[in-house]
């Protein structure tokens, strides 16, 4: 069951969506909420896109069953993003005019809800709360649970505010009491496991803390800011610090400095910020200072579409550093996986003394989802330290795994100068071909030879057909594959979580027996497909389903490509 709420920016659309999700989850359903907003803080357009189900869901559905218009001022801008299902319902204020034709397919049924009139005659009522009550009633959501959410949400504002909102919600429900409603939610299953309601950005923040991050430097940028805002109070509680920097150049160099001082450190940004951080990422690679950068991708290039998702920072994350700069690139595959991926990235950065880029995106970072409590994983970064230093200390000593013990300032006898200049084993600048080659080998080998284990990719299913995808499209592909499986077709899912270093041997094994591949990605130029072609061998019969953001790729589109003209 899918619900879309639209309205002007500032009308409370996202809050309303979040409260509906919270109430539905409290009543036992699973679900998620993604946002689609314009660039304006006030007066633009906003849509809350919800999907509620009895099973767990990882992506939006193809269609919307219930469209709620708090107002229709700029709603036509969602023409390509919101497709009403055949026979779908629209809640609309007759005083606000008809819903845009583009959002009203033939057969849509409109339910009148006089929002403006009700708010005018009842001081303290807000249109979004009335609409929330109406939507909840049409879905068959228990009103008591919803009222509990209202109470919690407004408690801090006093009894009068709680009362007015409770009344508005109840009135919304009454107003649609006689409306048709075959879109009622199925009865939820009893859930035994603990569940969380969390966004990808919050999950990334928690993952960072679980991985041992105790310093963050922050420069605000949409859609990554929530990671930093979540970390600010919570880092302080665990004995860490967050500092706001003057720009992204400062934020990345601050975390390099803090990590050089021995403290696992992170920053979060989006494409424009990552572009500014690239030089210092090369420094951290050369000086072997572990850091973590979470890039929550948005539409690009340049300022692009700050509020909407795209998978187009893959190239810069993998190839953007000048010179030969082996580092880690890790992509979370779901809201929950933002936790694991960030924790794993922190762990690996510390173990391998190198920078890690976590490639999340807006559709993961700003989606709020009901998820099972992620299991505790024992990834806590343990940096190899030089504690008992024998003179002369060789910070960049060759040999072994390539990871050399790092002296933390304060350690007697371990003094060295960390340097972006090509250096000797002792860290002394050099232009020698032999030293340059030796240190390049060292930094390559420590990353290439590490045993990353099963987390390198998600591998599911069997058969000769495979969907190869990454990041936020993993969940969409999984749903498409389950549609195909329901019809008896075997399709594999291959989604690398570790994008750098590449894993050629593992990929050969993952592709064994596969004769046909469908690559799926949110990129105009098919960056992921090009990346795969550069590093792996794909079957001749490889098709690519790709388009730029912000229009998400739907499960049915993948399913259609999988089944088109071919016997699975």
């Amino acid at each position, binding site marked *: 069951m899918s619900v879309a709420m639209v309205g002007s920016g500032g009308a409370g659309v996202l809050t309303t969506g979040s409260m509906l999700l919270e109430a539905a989850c409290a009543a036992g359903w699973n679900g998620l909420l993604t946002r689609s907003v314009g660039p304006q803080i006030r007066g633009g357009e906003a849509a809350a896109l919800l999907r509620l189900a009895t099973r767990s869901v990882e992506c939006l559905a193809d269609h919307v069953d219930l469209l709620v218009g708090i107002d229709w001022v700029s709603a036509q801008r969602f023409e390509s993003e919101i497709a009403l299902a055949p026979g779908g319902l629209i809640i609309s204020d007759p005083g606000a005019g008809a819903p845009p034709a583009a959002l009203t397919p033939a057969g849509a049924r409109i339910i009148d809800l006089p929002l403006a009139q009700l708010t005018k005659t009842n001081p303290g009522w807000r249109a979004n709360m009335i609409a929330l009550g109406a939507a909840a009633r049409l879905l068959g959501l228990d009103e008591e649970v919803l009222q509990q959410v209202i109470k919690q949400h407004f408690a801090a504002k006093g009894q009068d505010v709680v009362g007015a909102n409770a009344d508005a919600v109840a009135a919304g429900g009454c107003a649609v009491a006689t409306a048709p409603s075959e879109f009622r939610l199925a009865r939820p299953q009893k859930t035994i496991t603990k569940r969380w309601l969390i966004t990808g950005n919050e999950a990334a923040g928690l993952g960072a803390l679980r991985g041992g991050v105790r310093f963050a430097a922050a420069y605000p940028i949409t859609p990554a800011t929530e990671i930093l805002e979540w970390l600010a109070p919570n880092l302080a509680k665990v004995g860490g610090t967050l500092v706001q920097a003057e720009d992204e150049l400062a934020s990345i160099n601050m975390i390099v400095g803090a990590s*050089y001082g021995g403290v696992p450190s992170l920053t979060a940004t989006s494409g424009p910020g990552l572009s500014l951080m690239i030089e210092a990422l090369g420094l951290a690679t050369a000086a072997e200072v572990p850091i973590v950068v979470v890039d929550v991708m948005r539409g690009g290039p340049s300022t692009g579409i700050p509020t909407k998702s795209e998978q187009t920072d893959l190239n810069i994350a993998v190839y953007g550093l000048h010179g030969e700069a082996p580092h880690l690139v890790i992509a979370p595959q779901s809201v929950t996986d933002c936790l694991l991926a960030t924790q794993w990235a922190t762990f690996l950065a510390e173990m391998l003394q190198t920078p890690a880029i976590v490639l999340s995106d807006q559709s993961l970072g700003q989606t709020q989802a009901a998820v099972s409590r992620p299991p505790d994983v024992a990834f806590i970064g343990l940096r190899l330290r030089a504690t008992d230093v024998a003179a002369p200390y060789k910070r960049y000593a060759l040999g072994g795994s390539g990871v050399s013990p790092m002296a933390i300032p304060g350690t007697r006898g371990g003094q060295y100068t960390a340097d972006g200049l090509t250096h000797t084993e002792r860290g002394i600048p050099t232009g020698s071909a032999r030293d340059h080659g030796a240190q390049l080998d060292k930094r390559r080998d420590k990353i290439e030879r590490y045993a990353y284990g099963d987390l390198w990719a998600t591998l599911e299913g069997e058969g000769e057909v495979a969907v190869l995808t990454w990041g936020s499209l993993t969940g969409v592909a999984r749903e498409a594959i389950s549609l195909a499986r329901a019809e008896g077709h075997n399709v594999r899912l291959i989604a690398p979580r570790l994008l750098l270093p590449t894993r050629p041997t593992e990929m050969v094994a993952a592709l064994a027996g596969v004769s046909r591949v469908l690559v799926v990605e949110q990129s105009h130029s098919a960056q992921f497909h090009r990346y795969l072609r550069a590093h792996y061998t794909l079957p001749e019969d490889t098709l690519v389903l790709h388009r730029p953001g912000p229009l998400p790729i739907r499960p049915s589109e993948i399913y259609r490509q999988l089944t088109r003209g071919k016997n699975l």
Partner: protein
Amino acid sequence: MSATAPLACKPGDYKSETKPIWCPGCGDYHVLMALTRALAALGLPPEQFAIVSGIGCSSRIPAYTTCYGFHGVHGRSLPVAAGLKIVRPDLTVIVASGDGDGYSIGGNHFMHACRRNVDLTYLVMDNHIYGMTKGQPSPTTEPDFDTALTPGGTGVRPFNPLVVALASGANFVARAYAGNIHETANIIVEAVRHPGFSFIEILSPCVTYRPDQRAWKDRVHAAPVTATDDAARAARRLMTDDGFNLGVLYRGNRRPFQPVVAAVPCDLVEFEKGFEI
């Protein structure tokens, strides 16, 4: 109090065996001597100091000491040092830069480092030229100074770093001359001991691309007034002086930036409660 006697440690204990890349006669040799004297006078073992720098001739200085060093990218020494000092307040962190690294590419960080007032000491070796790239104008170069990149001069007014530092909130502002090793060492010692962000502009001649700066030794003189704690007064003096007044010019009393860290870290499980349905 004199910085140079009696010494518990010797300046030589702070000087590494690495041979500097500087040209013969470079003012930065004198800065290195002043710095190692100051470190000896401060009396902490070398591993308790971290010297952080960016890119340029002056930024090579960390490796010429026996302290911990960080030689980063161009213009970003101050953020590296701030990150380090914030997580490691036990260390004494000194930042070394030049007029190109610190005032041009790193100009934004300079303002914000002054504002933020982390307990750092910032040494800028100013020679009014980019030496490492062979003689281009920097933000402190005179407008009519002829270079290959700017024939006939830039025509652009030089930057007044000390006034910018005062306006931005630096807590200690001084000017030194590299050739006056003893005085420079004393100022560094005082700057390190002064809480918050301490800024020392060190006039350090580039004899290769600015042979005219050999005359600086005759032009510099002690400031005719003592240091003030009034930033406006200090700024006024600096805007009207000849650019060769030496000494401590301003001592502020702002509290340094040092975030308070929870003494007893909470368990991470506490955060889960906020997400539970």
